[in-house]
């Protein structure tokens, strides 16, 4: 254990703020909570690495504990490492190994996306998967797109602004929601900025969340090297997925001690990037009127990234658009978590706040940056859910970005 880790361990003063903010501990006692699994048991793990409580598997890795800790303890990183330790000792169930490889699932689904989507909706098959693998039959499966974002993306001819932008789409946009990536290209084209794309490995978050740290570390090294190459050539890197963003910028350093310093200046959430343009007076603010009321859900990982709600400022520029904050906390899906049979009910219980907020506000459309949050909110409420970029692209005037 490095000196930093030891000091992080000493910094916890047991105030339990993390416990009171933990969305999982709020709804179930199967999870001993971030403090107990984190700094408390870490002291025992120094004596015996096997001293990991199995309840560690119930952490959703929302990182709320890190955000609220007044002592600056990275509780969730401690928990992630412990889960990695637990999995390396006890192994992971096949189900977790499958769910953790969203990139492979995406590649496999490429063969016949329609068929996969149909099969994923077949009740008997889902019941079988629940029985055999432990994948909840009740949870809505993400739909695969007919073509991936990388296949669909065509560089547009734009005027030269001297800005070079590389887009890291992440697995979900590439395989399931290419329209988000296309909306990004549309919005940047509106500002005369051309987007470069490239094939990346999965950021590794699903692997990390399932305790498969070794594979995640390998992918992290590859991604980081590739990104560094673009940074060296003067590119800014933008992301649209808060989880990818957080993993690349923060988790690589916290969990794998990789040097992510170069990413700190050069990698931005796309709305952060647009905000910078706005501040410099370089954002094209010619928007069409959009008489809409939408609810906004802030993904946990966006909160953890510490960049506030970067889309808020930009969306306010759209005439007619009213954005109401749901302010309901975690949606509960947490990537692969809510797909697990034993965790589905917990995930739904956490998400009930979001459900209530949508009902109370009476909104029929919700926006959120995270693909998995989008899926869960749709599953919980049935309303249409978009990435804020789709709204912005709509206001830029080309295409039907909100028609699903």
């Amino acid at each position, binding site marked *: 254990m490095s000196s930093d880790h*030891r000091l992080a361990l*000493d910094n916890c*003063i047991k105030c339990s703020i993390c416990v009171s903010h933990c969305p999982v501990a709020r709804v179930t006692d199967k999870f001993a909570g971030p403090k107990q699994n984190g700094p408390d048991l870490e002291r*025992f793990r120094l004596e015996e690495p096997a001293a990991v409580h199995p309840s560690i598997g119930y952490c959703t890795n929302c990182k709320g504990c890190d955000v609220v800790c007044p002592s600056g303890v990275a509780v969730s990183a401690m928990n992630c490492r412990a889960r990695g330790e637990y999995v390396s000792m006890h192994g992971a169930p096949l189900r977790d190994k499958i769910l953790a490889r969203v990139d492979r699932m995406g590649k496999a689904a490429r063969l016949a996306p329609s068929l996969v989507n149909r099969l994923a909706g077949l009740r008997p098959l889902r019941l079988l998967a629940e029985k055999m693998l432990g994948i909840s039959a009740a949870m809505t499966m993400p739909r695969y797109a007919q073509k991936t974002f990388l296949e669909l993306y065509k560089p547009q001819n734009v005027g030269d602004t001297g800005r070079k932008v590389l887009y890291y789409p992440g697995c979900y946009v590439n395989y399931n929601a290419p329209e988000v990536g296309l909306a990004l290209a549309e919005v940047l084209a509106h500002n005369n900025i051309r987007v470069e794309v490239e094939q990346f490995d999965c950021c590794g978050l699903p692997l990390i969340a399932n305790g498969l740290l070794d594979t995640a570390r390998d992918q992290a090294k590859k991604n980081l090297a590739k990104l560094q190459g673009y940074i060296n050539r003067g590119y800014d890197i933008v992301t649209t997925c808060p989880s990818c963003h957080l993993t690349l910028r923060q988790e690589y350093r916290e969990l794998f001690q990789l040097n992510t310093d170069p990413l700190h200046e050069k990698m931005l959430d796309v709305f952060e990037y647009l905000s910078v343009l706005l501040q410099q007076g370089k954002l094209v603010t010619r928007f069409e009127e959009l008489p809409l009321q939408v609810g906004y859900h802030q993904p946990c990982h966006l909160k953890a990234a510490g960049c506030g709600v970067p889309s808020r400022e930009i969306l306010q520029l759209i005439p007619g658009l009213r954005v109401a904050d749901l302010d309901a906390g975690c949606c509960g899906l947490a990537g692969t978590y809510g797909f697990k049979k034993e965790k589905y009910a917990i995930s739904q219980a956490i998400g009930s706040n979001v459900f209530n907020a949508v009902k109370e506000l009476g909104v029929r459309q919700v926006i959120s940056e995270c693909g998995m949050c989008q899926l869960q909110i749709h599953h919980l409420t049935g309303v249409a859910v978009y990435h804020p970029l789709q709204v912005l692209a709509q206001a830029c005037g080309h295409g039907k970005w909100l028609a699903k």
Partner: protein
Amino acid sequence: METDKAQVVVIGGGATGTGILRDLALRGIPAILVEQGDLAHGTSSRFHGLLHSGARYAVKDKEAARECIEENMILRRIAPNCVELTGGLFVQLPEDDPQYADQWITACTEAGISCAEADVQELIKKNPVLSPNVTRAFKVPDCAVDGFRILWGNVNSARRYGARVLTYHRVSAIHQSNGRVTGVELINQLNGQKRSIECEMVINAAGPWGGEVAAMAGLEVNVIKDKGTLVAYNHRLMNMVVNRLRPPGDGDIFVPHGTITILGTTSTTVDDPGCTKPGHDEVLALIKIGQEMVPELESYRLIRAFAGVRPLYQAGNATGGRSVTRNFALLDHQQRDGLAGMVSIVGGKFTTFRLMAEKTVDLVASKLGVNAPCRTAREPLMTPVSEELLERGKKVFGVPGARKAAERLGDSFAQVVEQVEKNPDKGRILCECEVVSLAEIEHAAHSGDSFTLGDIRRKTRMGMGTCQGTFCSYRTLGALSGYPQFAGNHWEYLTKFLQKRWKGMRPVLWGQQLREAQLSTGIYCTLFAMERMR
């Protein structure tokens, strides 16, 4: 006034006293142990928690060193759940005399202590907190030992053979007639009631109070009271005991003890056997010396400091301190002072308590005409917890919770696991720093010798972790309010408990422990409207 009868009364509920009680019981000699406080509230819980290999004493005190290694091996065998086989290191730094190392190796070999030279680079890799300047290092069979647990192990074992224990009973008089001890008079420290025990023999095993006890019988025993202060770090800094390879001095031993690390000690002669107040200056001095072996020591969090009094003994007049032998002395007061029926066992150290007990009871048995041989080195203190039971425990407490509870509870672990299996609510963790469940707390409260929250603490470790009782003390008290001994004034219970915790925190109040204390003060003084820290 209540009157009891026993063949032997043992005064002092420390390692030696409980060891003696067990030895007496195993030889079939009816005995009662009397102790003024809770078991192990004195010297036997106020030490490093180090089960010496003897290497520390090898050069200067060969006899003590040989006894240590022999007893070390015996305790590993008879009390495996009280001993953690950490192994120990002796490390040499550039400023240490290299010739001492040679002398030390020879001495260890002669005393029968294995000391193998270790690869320094590998050692530092495994224990990254150690100074990169270490020049040589040797592995010795040091261990960590849990004082509280061994003492209760002794008592529980003795009880199975009919022995009795009276805690919170202070001896107020030793009766004698015609040059022979006839009994003792006791005062119950909790309710002031008097009580007497008729006996044929009194064994004075009162440690630093040995002189006071002897004086009650009109005898003079010169116990040198040598205070040592120690500090406890919030987590395990290393996984082995680390000693400095030079003549024994202050602050040169680190012991990983459960989840914490203890560094000590200092050495100052005091007058009061109950002087357990750690000094701020002593703490700073310890850290300064400790830093030579662990350079980053200052940045690690201390949770408390504590002090104990070594009862040293040297026949004749001596000043005290490091120069006094760690050997023990058995005083036959019949032979020495003409008072039959009384012996005193003085000096020695925790590691050799069993041997001290054996020698004492050998003498006492011969006086009582009992021929039964000593069995304490052969018979285990408790039945080890089976793998199957441990697995059941893991299901209800998790890995660390089960393992710790099994070590703490020994023979009673099965009962506590059963409780939780029947009623999962009882598995709730009340002390999160040391993973102590409601079921375990209730078990301790139920035992019949827990009268204060401090007693529960010594049995379970509740309140001994990072938060030093901030969260677990009110939870525990709340859970225990149904027990008659905890049905009184809750403000008083908490004050007594927390003041003791704060006594240890006060000398180390900086950094994160200061923030912890602020939080604690906020909870108790503001939220619970209690008084300021005193």
